[in-house]
C-alpha cells in the first residue's frame, strides 16, 4: 500500500545556538526548501518561522548548546523539525488566543512565536526526556483548485477494471469530481495536483475504477496516525444500483490496506449505505450547519465507521469515573479488549513523570474546517492554566461564529487523560470513541 511507504528526502543540519549562526540557519532553511522544489511563498513562510523561533528562544535562554533543523520533503508538504534542550520554553504564544499588548513587554516576547505559528500550515510540540523539545512545523505546498470537467454519459455495461492511477488520471478524476456535489471531499481531491503529489510521494493510496474506457469511481487512503489509516470514498460518478462498484473498490482497498501494518481503518466522509459488511459503526456527531449566531440551523449528522485490521489490540486505559463509564460502555459495544482502570488523578500522576511540560502555560491547537463551521481542539502542552486557556479558546471561537467545537483526547497520552476533568467542568461530554486513532484511542468531546 503506497500510503504507508513515504519516499521522501531529508536535509538536516545542527548549529550552535548562538546569534552569529542565525543567518546560517536561515540560509539552510531557505536553500533546502528551494532545493526541494518549493515556491517562494512556502520558502518565505518556513524561513520566517525558523527566524522567529530561533530568535525567540535565543533571547529566552543563553548557553543552549545546539539547535537541530531537519527538513523532510514529502512533495506535497515540507516537515521541519526544530530540536533543542530547554527546561521551560515559552509556549503560550503558540495559542491562537495569544494577543500582543504593545505596553506589555512580556507579551511582546511572544510575538515571534505567534508569527511563526501563523506562517505554517500546522505546528506540533513534543517533549522528551532530559528537557528535549521538538517543534514540528508543516508547510503545505500551495495548489490550485480543480478545473471542472463535464462527466461523460454513464457508461453502458462493460468490463470493470480497477487500477492504480497515473498522475493524469488523478487530475482528470479530480475534475470530474469537481463537476458534482460531494459534501465530504478532502482538500487533496479539491486540489487534485496535491493528490497526485501525495500519491507520488507515498503519502496517499489510490485506486480508480474504469467501466470500459470511462472513469467511474475511486477510493483513497492515507495515514492518520502510526496505527490508523483513513479511507476516503469510494467516490462514485454514476449510479451503482447493486453496489457492485462500491463493493469492488472497498474490497480492493481494504485488502491492500490490511497488509500495510496499520491496526485500524477509519472512514468519516459521510454516510455509507450497507456499511455493515465493511465497518463497525462508531457513532455520529451532530453538527450545526449554520453558525450559532445565525439562529436555529439544520443539524448535519457526521457518521464515523471503523474497521479493526489486526486481530488483537488490548490495552489499559486510566480514566476518572465519569469518563470510565463512557469508555466501558463503548468498549463493550464494540467488543474491544481494553481494561479501564478508574482513577481520579491519572493524568496528573503520570503526566509529570514522562517529562511533559509542567509550567504554567498550556497550549491548545485548533484545526478549522470553515465549510462546516467546525473547530477541533487538541492539547499540545499541559499547563496550570488549562481551564482558563480552554475558556479563552471557546470565547474566541464563539466570537468567530464557529458553530461546532470538538475536543479530541488521546487515551494513549497520559497528559491528555488529565485534560478530561477540565472538559467535563466546561460542559463537554464524550460523544465518540475512535479506536487506535492516536497513540491509544481517540475520544471526541462535544457540548
Amino acid at each position, binding site marked *: 500500500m503506497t500510503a504507508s511507504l513515504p519516499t521522501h528526502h531529508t536535509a538536516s543540519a545542527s548549529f550552535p545556538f548562538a546569534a552569529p549562526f542565525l543567518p546560517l540557519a536561515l540560509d539552510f532553511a531557505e536553500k533546502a526548501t528551494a532545493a526541494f522544489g518549493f515556491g517562494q511563498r512556502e520558502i518565505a513562510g518556513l524561513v520566517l518561522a525558523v527566524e522567529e523561533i530561533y530568535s525567540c528562544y535565543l533571547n529566552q535562554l543563553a548557553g543552549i548548546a545546539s539547535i537541530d533543523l531537519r527538513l523532510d520533503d514529502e512533495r506535497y508538504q515540507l516537515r521541519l523539525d526544530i530540536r533543542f534542550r530547554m527546561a521551560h520554553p515559552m509556549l503560550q504564544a503558540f495559542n491562537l488566543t495569544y494577543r500582543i499588548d504593545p505596553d506589555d513587554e512580556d507579551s511582546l516576547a511572544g510575538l515571534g512565536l505567534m508569527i511563526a505559528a501563523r506562517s505554517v500550515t*500546522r505546528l506540533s510540540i513534543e517533549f522528551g526526556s532530559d528537557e528535549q523539545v*521538538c517543534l514540528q512545523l508543516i508547510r503545505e505546498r500551495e495548489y490550485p483548485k480543480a478545473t471542472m470537467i463535464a462527466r461523460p454519459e454513464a457508461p453502458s455495461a462493460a468490463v470493470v477494471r480497477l487500477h492504480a492511477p497515473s498522475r493524469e488520471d488523478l487530475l482528470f478524476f479530480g475534475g470530474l469530481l469537481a463537476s458534482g456535489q460531494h459534501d465530504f471531499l478532502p482538500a487533496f481531491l479539491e486540489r487534485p495536483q496535491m493528490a497526485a503529489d501525495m500519491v507520488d510521494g507515498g503519502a496517499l493510496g489510490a485506486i480508480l475504477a474504469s467501466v470500459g474506457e470511462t472513469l467511474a469511481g475511486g477510493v483513497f487512503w492515507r495515514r492518520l496516525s502510526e496505527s490508523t489509516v483513513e479511507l476516503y470514498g469510494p467516490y462514485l460518478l454514476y449510479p451503482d444500483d447493486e453496489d457492485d462498484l462500491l463493493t469492488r473498490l472497498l474490497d480492493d482497498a481494504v485488502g491492500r490496506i490490511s497488509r500495510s*501494518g496499520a491496526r485500524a481503518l477509519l472512514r468519516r466522509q459521510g454516510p455509507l449505505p450497507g456499511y*455493515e459488511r465493511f465497518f*463497525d*459503526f462508531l457513532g455520529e456527531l451532530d453538527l450545526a450547519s449554520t453558525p450559532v449566531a445565525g439562529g436555529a440551523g439544520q443539524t448535519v449528522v457526521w457518521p464515523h465507521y471503523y474497521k479493526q485490521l489486526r486481530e*488483537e489490540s488490548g490495552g489499559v486505559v486510566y480514566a476518572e469515573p465519569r469518563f470510565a463509564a463512557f469508555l466501558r460502555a463503548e468498549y463493550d459495544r464494540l467488543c474491544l479488549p481494553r*481494561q479501564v482502570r478508574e482513577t481520579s488523578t491519572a493524568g496528573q500522576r503520570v503526566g509529570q513523570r514522562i517529562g511533559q511540560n509542567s509550567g504554567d502555560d498550556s497550549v491548545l*491547537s485548533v484545526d478549522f474546517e470553515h465549510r462546516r463551521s467546525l473547530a477541533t481542539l487538541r492539547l499540545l502542552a499541559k499547563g496550570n492554566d488549562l481551564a482558563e486557556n480552554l475558556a479563552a479558546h471557546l470565547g474566541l471561537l464563539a466570537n468567530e461564529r464557529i458553530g461546532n467545537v470538538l475536543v479530541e483526547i488521546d487515551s494513549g497520552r497520559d497528559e491528555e487523560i488529565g485534560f478530561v476533568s477540565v472538559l467535563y467542568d466546561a460542559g463537554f461530554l464524550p460523544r465518540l470513541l475512535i479506536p487506535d486513532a492516536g497513540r491509544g484511542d481517540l475520544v471526541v468531546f462535544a457540548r
Partner: protein
Amino acid sequence: MSTGQTLGRRDSHFVDGLIPDYVRQFQAYVPSKPDRQLMLEYGAPFLHRLNNNENALGAPPAARQVIADYPLKRLSIYPSGDAFDLRQALAARFDFDADRFLVGNGSCEVITSIIKAFCERGDNIVTADKTFAVYEWVAEFSGVEARLVALLGNAFDPEAMLARIDRRTKIVFVCNPNNPTGGYWPTEVLVDFLERAGERIVVIDEAYCEFVEQSDYPDAMSLMERFPNVVVFRTFSKMYALASLRVGYLVGSAPVVDAVRRTSTTYSVNSLGQIAAQAALADTTGHLDRSRALVREAREFLGKACGEIDLPVVSGEGNYIMIKVPINDTLMYRRLMRRGFMVRSMTGFRFPGWIRVTLGDAAVMAAFADVLRDEIATLRRGATPSR
C-alpha cells in the same frame, strides 16, 4: 495544528539509515497473544482456537510416545544439524534420495531459504493475491517483487500467472490446495502449467495435501522427474499435528535442493521435532483416515449449519471452511472471541467480510455453530443504524 511525532524519531534516524528500504517499508507480523491473555482481555470463559487449521485429533500416538519417552539427558545435546534420520525416513517413504529432502523449522523457513537461494534485487516471484501470505511477505522483506495474481474462482489462475511471468521471474508459488479457499489444480492443469512455465522454480505448497480426498488431486512429487524445476513443500504442522514443534520440509531435484541448502540454517529443527516427525510418518494406527473423517464430518455439519442461517460458505479441500458473515469480519472475530471461539478474520487474506474456521472436533463444531447462530440472530434482530 495537530499533534505530532515523538522525540524518539531522532534517535531512530541512525537506524533508519542502516535499514534497506524494502525492510523499512515492511510491517512486522504480530502473532496472537497467549490464550490466558486473550481470555482475560475478552472476558471469554474458555478459548477454542479455530484460527490456525490445527488438527483437533492431536499428534499420532507414536509421535506422542516418542516425546514421552525422550530421555531428559538428551536435552543438552544439539539436534542433528540436517535432520539426518528424518530425511532418511522421508526418503524411504517417498522413494527419493535423502539428499533431495531439506527439513526446516516449519515451512516458513524453507520458503525463506528458497527465496534467498534464487532471488536477488530485480527478480520477482509470482503467486496469488488471496493465498498464504508468507510467500509475498518473504519476497517483500527480501527486496524481491511479489507479483500477485487474482484467483480464478477459488483456485490459482494458471493463464493469468503465466502472463505475469517474465525473464526475472525466479519462483512461482502455487498453494495446492489453496489456503484459505480450498481450491486446487487437478493433475491435468498442473502438468499443463509446468509445461509452459519455462525454466524457473515452481513450488507446489502441499501443506494440506493429506486432507485432500479427490481422485484428480495431483501427486506433485511424482512430477519431479519429468519437471526438475518442481519443488514440493510439506509440513508436519497440519495433518500430523506437530505445529508446536515446527517441522516442515521441501523435496526437489538434487541441484535445486543443493542450492537451497546453502541458504538454510543448520540446527534449526529441534530434536523433539525430528523424532516426533519420524514417528508420525511411521504411524500405522490410521491417524490420517481418522483425521480425514473428522474433517469431512465437520465440513458437512458446519456447511449445513451455515446454510440454515443463510451464510454462504467456501469449502474446498483442507481442514478449514470460509464463512461469509453479514458484518465486518473483524467485528465478528471480536464477538466470537467474547464467546470463547477464535476464528481467522479474512481481511488480511484480502477477503473482507469472511471468516475462516478450522474444521475439527464434533462437539466443538456443534458449540461453535450454536454460538454463530446466536450471534447472527442477535445481529438480525438488532436495529442497525440506517447510515
